[in-house]
Structures are given as C-alpha cells and as structure tokens.
C-alpha cells in the first residue's frame, strides 16, 4: 500500500473511526437532535411578522356622535387593542414607556370639521418611531380604519380602480410558512460550520491532528474522513427539521424529497468547508467559535434573505451576499416547501453553493499544505 495514493479502504477505515467518535460524543448528538428541535420550536413560535392586536390609544377629545362612531371603529379593529383616553397627556407617558405603540387623536372640532367638509386633516396619528416597523404598521392600519370609516359614511361609491390581489404559494400570507424553511438553513449552518470548526480546532489544540497526519493516510483522506460523518449528521438533521416543519407546524412540502436532499447536500459543501477553514486558521476553540458565529451564523441570519429581503439592502451589501451560501439555500428551501420543484431556480443555486464551497476548500488546501511545511 503506497502512502501517496488515494485508498478507498483507508478512507472507509477513517470514516468508521470518525463516525464512532461522533456517535460517542454527547455534544455532537446534542447539536444534531436537541438543538434543531429547540431552534425549530423557537423560530416557529417566536418569529412572527403577522401583527395583530397592537396596543394603541385613542384620544377622544370630542363628545360628538361622529367622533364616538370613529372611536368605536378603532375599538372594533382586529389589528388594534385600544386604550381609550380623554386627554393626550395621559397616553404620552405610556408611549415613552413602550406600553402603547402610538395613539390616534380625534380632535374636539371633529364633527364640525366633518360637517363643513373641511379640507384639512381630520385626525392625528402619533406613533412610537423607535420601533420603525411597528410604527409603519400603526400608521398604515390606522389610516386604513379612518378611510374605511369615511367611505362607509359617504355612502361608499365604489373606487373606480381597485386591485384584486392574490398571494401565490402562501395565500394566507402566514409568515411561519416562509420563515421556517429559512430557519432550516440557519440550523444547518450551525451544524455544518460551528460543529466542524469546533471539532477540528480541538484536534489542533490537543495536537492529535499531527498524530493523524503522521500516519500513511493522505491529507485528503483525513479531511474527508473527518467531514463525511458530519455530512451525514447534517442530512439527518435536515430530515428531522423537515418532519417537524411539515407535521408539527403545518408547512406544506410541495417539492420532492429528492430536490430537498440535493439542495441540502449542496449546501453542506460550503458549510463544512467554511468550518474546516475556520479550524485551520483558529486552532483554538474560543477563537474558532467566535469566528464561526461571526462569519457563519450571523451572516446567515442577517444576509441570507431569511428575515431581511436582500433586494432592500444597499448595493455593496447585496454584492457581499453572493458569498454567503445560505443566501442560495434559503431561497431554494422556500421554493421547495411552498412552490414545488423549480429546477430553473435550483440548478443555478446548487452551482453557486458548490462554487463557494470549492473556494473554501481551495483555501483549506493552501493553508494545510503550508502548515505541514512548517
């Protein structure tokens, strides 16, 4: 058996040894089974973009019948939980304290203005701008309540031009349905990148990496032997997350398991490559974990389009997202769950993930060769 060549038998042996090591390591099991479950539960319940019952105040400065009718319209809205008041000063403090997200002022001369057809604004809406999203929501829906109320009063001549809107793939616009597939990408980043970075960094830290290197096994065999078990764990975790998503959280899986498996495999290539790269650079678990969090998890969380739409970011940051493998994975996952197998989207994404992965492995190859020279 030559030391230089690639030996399938040696690789099998290495994979077997590494797999045993993984199976005996309680923290690897924790990351594969417990962590995804906890994360899926948290993502599913904590992340919701569907706002309703936002607490606001309604200041009724007038006793007029019309004013009271409008106030009642606010109380009846399912978007708001209304705290009534007579004086705006009562509510200002609650807005500062964050208990109310804003308030509507129906002024003293509301009825009079309405009767004489005054051209000025009829009501004032104040929002808590320190939470910009909620503020826009309050402004938009409060405006909606006023408009609907006015239309109803004026005998509702139908608007001449109206929109008939339909949301495809997710008709109820349930934010869970697109957040949960995205969350799978985040969880896989944790498994692929963090776990590999830690495991291999530990080998460097303890010096056992050098011991393995001094055997006849080649660098390629050693690294493949290390990575393949984690590749398997990653796929198992994807499968587990998918079952949770479809059975526990009611997310439809309209695409095929085959496409899902292919996408997950393609994503694991850059994820594992990045973990390996971090471990060869850091060589101590503290730094490795910091790097994995800051170059792996946080970018996947913030820059993948999982929570924040990439198209809305500044141009330079959009360019940067092309380097984040999760970007391609999140978009594909949302499609495979909600739309079906759209190969015209999957294939370019798979290629892109493999290309990023090839880049990481190229850097690893350069780094490890150097380290052996020293």
């Amino acid at each position, binding site marked *: 058996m030559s030391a230089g060549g690639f030996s399938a038998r040696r690789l099998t042996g290495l994979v077997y040894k590494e797999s045993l090591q993984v199976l005996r390591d309680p*923290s690897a099991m*924790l990351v594969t089974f417990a*962590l995804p479950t*906890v994360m899926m539960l*948290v*993502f599913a319940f904590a992340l919701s*973009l569907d706002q309703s019952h*936002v607490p606001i105040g309604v200041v009724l400065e007038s006793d007029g019948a019309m004013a009271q009718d409008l106030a009642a319209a606010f109380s009846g809205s399912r978007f708001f939980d209304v705290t009534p008041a007579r004086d705006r000063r009562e509510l200002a403090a609650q807005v*500062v*304290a964050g208990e109310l997200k804003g308030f509507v002022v129906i002024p003293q001369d509301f009825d009079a203005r309405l009767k004489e*057809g005054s*051209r000025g604004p009829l*009501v*004032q809406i104040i929002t*808590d*701008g*320190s939470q*910009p999203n*909620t*503020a826009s929501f309050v*402004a938009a829906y*409060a*405006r909606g309540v*006023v408009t609907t109320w006015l239309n109803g009063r004026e005998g509702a001549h139908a608007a*001449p*031009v*109206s*929109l*008939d809107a*339909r949301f*495809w793939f997710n008709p109820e*616009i*349930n934010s869970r349905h*697109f957040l949960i597939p995205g969350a799978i990408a985040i969880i896989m980043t*944790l498994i692929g990148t*963090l*776990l590999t970075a*830690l495991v291999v960094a*530990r080998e460097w830290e303890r010096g056992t990496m050098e011991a393995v290197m001094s055997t006849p096994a080649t660098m390629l065999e050693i690294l493949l032997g290390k990575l393949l078990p984690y590749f398997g764990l990653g796929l198992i975790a994807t499968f587990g997350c998918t079952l949770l998503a479809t059975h526990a959280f009611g997310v439809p899986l309209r695409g095929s398991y085959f496409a899902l498996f292919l996408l997950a495999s393609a994503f694991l290539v850059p994820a594992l490559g990045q973990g390996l790269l971090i471990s060869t650079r850091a060589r*101590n*678990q503290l*730094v490795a974990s*910091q*790097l994995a*969090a800051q170059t792996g998890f*946080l*970018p996947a969380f*913030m*820059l993948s389009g999982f*929570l*924040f*739409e990439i*198209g809305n*970011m500044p141009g330079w*940051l959009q360019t940067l997202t092309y380097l984040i493998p999760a970007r391609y994975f999140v978009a594909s996952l949302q*499609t495979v769950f*909600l*739309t079906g197998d*759209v190969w015209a*989207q999957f294939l370019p994404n798979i290629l892109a993930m493999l290309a990023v992965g090839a880049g990481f492995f190229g850097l690893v190859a350069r780094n490890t060769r150097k380290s052996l020279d020293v």
Partner: protein
Amino acid sequence: MRLVAQIVKELLSNLRDGQTRLSFIGPPLLQLCVLSFAATMEVRDVDIALVNDDTGRASHELVQRIAAARFVNEVIVVDRPDAIAQLLERREVLVGVHIAADFSRAVAAGRAATVQVLIDGRRGNSGQIVLSYLQTITNDYGAELMGVSAAGLPRVEVRHWFNENLTYLWFIIPGMTGILVMFNTLVVTALSIAKEREQGTFDQLLVSPSSPLEIVIAKCVPAFVIAITQAALMISVSALIFDIPLAGSIPLLFLAVVLFIFSLVGIGLMLSSICETQQQAILSVFAVGYPLIMISGFATPVENMPSWLQTIAQGSPLKHFLVIIQGSFSKAMPPLEVLSNAWPMVLIGVITLSAAMVIVKRKLQ
C-alpha cells in the same frame, strides 16, 4: 489579596493572546457596521412583471405611474399571464400585474375597473408592503378620475415620535450592540470553568485556599472588562459615527450595561459549571443564546408572540436591555422606566450566579 491575585491571573489568561484580544474588538465592530445595514424592512428596487391586454389610455397612464414609483426597479413587460407565473415561480419578480382588455373601457364608462395583482407569498412580508404601495397608486389615480375634491387630500396627519423619518438604523444598531455584547460575554464566561476542567487545572483550583466565592468572582472579572469595553465602543460608534441621538441619561445607560453584563455572566457561569469540556460549553452557549435572541424582540416584536412565550421572554436579559438601550437612544426614557426594566436583569443574574455557586460548591465536596 488572594482575590486580587486570582483576578490578575484570569485577566492574563484571557487577554494575553493577541489573536484572542483582537477577536474581542475587531470582528464585533465590523459586524455592527456591516450587518446593521442589512436589517431593513423598507422595500426598494422591486421588479414587476406586467401583462397589459388593454390598449387604451387609462391602462397606459396607470402603467406609467407604477413604473415611475420610487420602490420600482424595473417593469418587465411580457405577453401572456403564464410568463408572469414562470417569473414568479423562479423568484425573478416579486409581483405580477395583469391588466385585462376591458380596463380602459370600464374606466371610461365609470364602471369599477379591476387590476389583478399576483404576489410571491414566499416573500409575504415585502409583498404586503408592495401591495400597499400599489394600492396608494391606484387610489390616487381613481380619485383623480372621479375628480373628487376631498379624496386626494390627506384625511389623517401622521407623526412619528422619537424617529421622525423612521430611520431603521436607529432601531437596529442599539439592538445589534446588545446581541454582540451578549454573545461575547456568554462565550468568555462559559468557557472559563469548562476550560479549567477540560485541562485538569480545575482540581488544582479546588485544592487551593480560594473559596468558591473567590473563584467565581475572579472568573467574572475578565468578562466584565471585555464586555464593558465592547459596549462602550459600540455605543460611542452608534452615537458618533451613526449619529443616533442619545437622548437618555448616559449614566443610567451605563448602569443598565453593567446590570446586563451581570446577568449574562450569571448565565455563562452557570453553563460553565455544568459543562465538562469547552466544546460542550460553546455549544450550550449557542443552544441558549439563540433562543434568548429570538424571544428578545430584536427580530420580531415580543407582542406578536403567543402569551406563554411572552412570559418566558421575561427571562431573556436581552429583552430588558433592548427596551432600555432603544429607549435611551432617541426616546429619552425616564429614569423610573429604565429602572423598572433593569431589575429583572438583576434578578436573572442573582439566580444564575447562585446556581453556579451551588454547583461549584457541590463539586468541591
């Protein structure tokens, strides 16, 4: 005296290494500056697929208005509705607009004219915002057609307190500060005892004359030093470089930072006292840290969560800290409000630190 020596040793062992020292300052600051720009819900540069079966003036006018809107990047004109379907499926457009052949005739005849809008539900959040923009365009157009005097007039006056233009960065940067400080503090403290245990030096520490209290205090100090430096740097960057108005009381904010770190050190040490190896410690930080972020209201408001989860969210120090730091920037939150959001962090810290002490003590016996 023994305590001082112990603290010096802990500081040295954490901060001697250049790579480590750098990893506490450089990357978090970079993250703060880069990632904060990602977090925007403002919709821009939208691509719209359009099928216009109508040759009349009214549809032409409407298309012009949509194409000229600020949020639109490109209107892709296609011939058939299935082409819209295909572009939507591939995520190449967010919205498809289909104007039927009788649109202009309906408008001219004063009948209700309807435009079909198809939206990618996978991007439901942006989709809803774009729909509201389109709604405004058609409402304005409709009002003009009717020549209604009051319809085009604003019937409500909106004012956004504290952040007039709803600049998203003002919201996100204080939040990111909290997250980054939290992660670093948790990792540093969680590793502290676990590392000694993995390397076998914990036994030496136990046979030394130091009491458990001294051991725990000494382990806290480096995390405090690192985290306070980080927080001070990030808050300065927020105020000086990003120009976020720091309207609240600075000493109170500083007090909140200290209490926040105190609660995190408690959580970190509790994890550390349980874990046997560094790897377990780091993984447990991730397992505990991410849920703490998710339920803190950073990503989505706490009020959107089911009420049982809102109760659990009270246990996340980040939740309380975000209220204070976001309140101190821009809002000038009154001292009483700051304090009423600060005491839960003290409580979390006391509970977790006592737990850590008990566990360390048990290992002693």
